[in-house]
């Protein structure tokens, strides 16, 4: 068995990506749940630059950044490959993963929006991104970004959408509107029903409670 440890936050989309990757490939690992308010000395030693999760430690050597970790795992454990074999398809997959990251600051803006106008603006911006995904990636009505099976793009975007559910609950706003984005909505339903994803999907109520707590603490300290 490989000597693998994962330092993460169960509620973080970035940690989810690594967990899903490990589970999809049937790789055993030790899960180390970090406390964001009291990070372990090991974490700080393994990721001194960013001091963030997730960090995968393999044979004592740390790998940081969720997508770098996912690629690393895919290279060393090629069963159930997550990256396409063809170099052009790989480049396209990486493009969409990078694109998805652009949605993150907008989500943050939404979480911290203090009035209806700010919230509205953030939702509109998110919808622009959704339209691009809908029109460019899912136009051929594929089941997943990876085609018939989920791949690294599904995992990257799926993790962000898992978090999106919590934002919708938190801010009481519907963002992934089925009527506006039928293909994206269907994709997310399909994604959540992939057995391994379903088994390892964060509990909705727990997520909401956790985010409320984090937000409260953040606002209290500012």
């Amino acid at each position, binding site marked *: 068995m490989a000597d693998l440890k994962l330092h993460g936050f169960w509620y973080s989309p970035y940690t989810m990506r690594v967990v899903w990757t490990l589970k999809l490939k049937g790789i055993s690992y030790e899960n180390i749940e970090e406390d964001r308010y009291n990070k372990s000395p090991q974490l700080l030693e393994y990721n001194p*630059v960013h001091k963030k999760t997730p960090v995968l430690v393999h044979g004592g050597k740390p790998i940081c*950044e969720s997508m770098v970790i996912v690629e*690393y795992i895919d290279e060393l454990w090629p069963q159930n490959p997550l990256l396409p074999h063809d170099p052009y398809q790989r*480049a396209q997959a990486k493009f969409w993963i990078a694109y998805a990251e652009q949605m993150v600051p907008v989500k943050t803006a939404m979480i911290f929006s203090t009035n209806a106008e700010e919230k509205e603006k953030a939702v509109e911006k998110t919808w622009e991104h959704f339209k691009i995904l809908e029109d*460019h990636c899912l136009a051929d009505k594929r089941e997943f970004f990876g085609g018939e099976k989920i791949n690294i793009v599904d995992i990257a975007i799926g993790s962000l959408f898992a978090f999106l559910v919590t934002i919708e609950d938190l801010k009481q706003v519907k963002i992934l509107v089925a009527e506006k984005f039928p293909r994206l909505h269907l994709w997310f339903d399909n994604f959540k029903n992939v057995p391994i994803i379903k088994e390892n999907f964060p509990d909705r109520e727990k997520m909401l409670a956790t985010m409320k707590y984090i937000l409260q603490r953040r606002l209290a300290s500012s």
Partner: protein
Amino acid sequence: MEDKLSEVVLFGSWYSPYTSRVKLALKLKGIPFKYVEENLSNKSELLLKYNPIHKKVPVLLHNGMPICESLIILEYIDEVWNHAPKLLPEDPYQRSRVRFWANYTDQKIMPASYPLLLLKGEKKQKAIEDMEEMQRVLEEGIKQDFPEQFSFFNGKTIGLLDIFMGVNCYNYKAFHEVTNSEIIGPKNPKIFMWVNALKEHPLMKDTLPPHDKVVAMLKTMIAPTPDV
């Protein structure tokens, strides 16, 4: 099997560091390509067709198919033209560290560089200090991750991080001159040695814009207001 000698076209801009990265990678691998200089204030229809989402340079066109984003392009080049010299190391762990530092450069260092040009007074001073701190972090990280590095990160030939670093720092003197700072210097000995070795590399000299041209370009980017 695809014909790797099929037309390769690079859409770019002479002062875009992201474009220079791709030029270097193509030249390093000995890949013949056609270069199209874009006017970024009047982008060509082809550029907008090949990169409709971001509308940015560089875009690599291979067999009529576009690849965008410099890091993605470099990895693509390394995979398709997988002969030596390799841009990325073979070892997966080393590859993860190269990707980590490439991301650090793109997420932290690059976004901080342009604003620095525009700032004045105290804000500028703070930005300079932040940039120096990032160089320190890079220095420490490189010492830790690549302790046996000789001249260049791949040993005798340049690789992806050399390309990134070379492009960013080749004209460090121009940057210092225009911002009146000294961000790259002997206080970060490993980086300083590395940057100076890269400056002497024939490929860098051959590809990257000369000092005076860069100074002129940087000066046009600075707002013409006096220091406060």
